[in-house]
């Protein structure tokens, strides 16, 4: 995959480049500040962009704004946003366009290389990767109907909202795929959501429910 990176911290930037090239990807460009992000994306049209939220010169949410702006210019451009902290509002802003190919993860997750690369591939393929913390924030702020779910169903809902597919959920929870789809059916029924196929549309349905 061809990847554009925006990260101001030199150590982390080199680490990311190393991690991605070792996995066989090509880092097409590296932006070191907010104003540099959009031109780099427009010039290189990467398969996926990895952007830090906070960038110079303002050190506010330049990366996030660049991601939203870039997706206006290049609809469906897969973007994985990394941050030192997650805020559900930011996730909502990223997902507001409705199209897939959105990732929003804590920087900590880079440490689990396999999972990180997996999330990156998922985003590049038009899927979703939401940090478990964002999902947890969403689920606590909507506790009324969610409290009617069993603990297992809640786990499944959380993983589903992160953007994982059935087989990954099954491996994570060490259960069969059949019981995963059974749990998902129960969750959809309890929350009153129309049954939908797996993949990004399902995530959107779940998130739409959590944000409503």
């Amino acid at each position, binding site marked *: 995959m061809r990847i554009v990176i925006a990260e101001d911290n030199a150590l982390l930037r080199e680490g990311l480049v190393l991690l991605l090239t070792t996995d066989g990807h090509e880092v097409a460009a590296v932006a070191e500040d907010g104003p540099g992000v959009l031109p780099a994306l427009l010039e290189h049209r990467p398969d996926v962009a990895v952007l830090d*939220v*906070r960038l110079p010169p303002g*050190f*506010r*949410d330049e990366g996030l704004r660049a991601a939203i702006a870039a997706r206006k210019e290049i609809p469906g451009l897969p973007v994985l946003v990394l941050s*030192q*902290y997650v*805020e*559900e*509002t930011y996730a*909502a802003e990223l997902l507001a366009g409705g199209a897939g190919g959105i990732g929003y993860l*804590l920087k*900590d997750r880079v*440490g*689990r290389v396999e999972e990180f690369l997996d999330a990156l591939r998922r985003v590049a393929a038009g899927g979703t990767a939401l940090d478990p913390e964002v999902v947890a*924030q969403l689920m606590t*702020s*909507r*506790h*009324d109907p969610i409290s009617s779910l069993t603990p297992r169903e809640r786990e499944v809902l959380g993983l589903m909202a992160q953007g994982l597919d059935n087989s990954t959920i099954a491996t994570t929870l060490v259960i069969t795929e059949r019981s995963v789809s059974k749990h998902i059916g129960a969750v959809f029924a309890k929350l009153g959501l129309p049954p939908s196929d797996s993949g990004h549309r399902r995530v959107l349905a779940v998130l739409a429910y959590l944000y409503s």
Partner: protein
Amino acid sequence: MYRALRRSAAASVYLVVGLRTALPSMLGLYLLPFAGLLAMLFVLVPWLPDVLRPVRALAGIERRRAGRALGREIPEPYPAVEGPSLERVVRLLRDPSTWRDLAWMVLHGLSGFLMGVLAIGLWPSILFALSMPLWWWAAPEGSMSAFIVLDSWPKALTMPFLQAAINAACLIWLLPHLARFQARLAGWLLGPSRRSSLTERVERLTETRAEALEAHGAELRRIERDLHDGTQAQLVAVALRLGLADRRFEADPDAARELFLQARDGVEEALTQLRAVIRGIYPPILSDRGLPGAIRTLAAGQHIPVRLELPGEAEARVPAAVEAAAYFVVAEALTNIARHSGATKAEVVLHRADSSLRVLVRDDGKGGAGTAGGSGLAGIRRRVAALDGTTRIDSPAGQGTTLEVELPCGS
């Protein structure tokens, strides 16, 4: 007319009740020269505080009475006096409120009695004047009405009515003025003088400043403890695991790998703790979006509708510490509302005044919230106190909770 009469009646009652302090004041007025003389001969000096006690008690009664009439409380101006008796005496003598009390006693003793008697006498005097034409002929020789000797029917049928009119005018116009004068005299002499209220204000500011520094120090210690016992200890454990992994790397790669993974878990945990500490010091969303934006984010995360009133002037940045405290207040208050109140809606209002930021959080829940019982309200109070701010909680049972915080922000 009815209202004027009622006003006069109220004034009369006030002046008559004034006799309760006026008569003892009169007594005090007569005793004052003797007391002064004895004091000059140093006989009375050691007992001065005891001598002044009844004066202060009397002033206290008048202060409450006049305060009710003026519609504002007249605060006691006496500074706390402690120490050995001689020092107490010197302090008392140097305290302006002592002399102001005595001045009030003299003036009130002179005027209060007269005014009280006038208030009692004016009402029947009108009836007396009006009935004069019926029995003037039986009155003693030289009886007068309106300063005219009544010696013929024409005079007896006109002058008493003039007298009654004069008396009624006094009643309606003069009595309320006199009552107001009496109350104002007390308010002026018995309340704190401008200088002493300034002194008191400085004292209070010094006190709250000391408290604020103390609370600020407690916050710093809390942060230090979180970092020291949490993050730092966690990282030491990580370093230890990495060191062990390094030693075992050749001999037992599997065990080394297990240690590496544990180290990674430890780093992740440290990062989580660090995020919590950072959030406690200065939530990152504040530097991203400013206070109004951050509050909008908080409100969006609630499962009940939260009405926001974040006027434009709140966009003007306030000092970071104030911003962080205001954000903390709103976050804690909304958490409390979600957890305990059972409210169906809430409201957050920011108001930027000249030198302060006011934060108001209101809900329609079940009320009865207090700082006791380990709720977040104690934390709010602590955090606000550290910035020399004030916290007000109004939470009557069944009528929702209003939290109002005022944070000074310098400029």
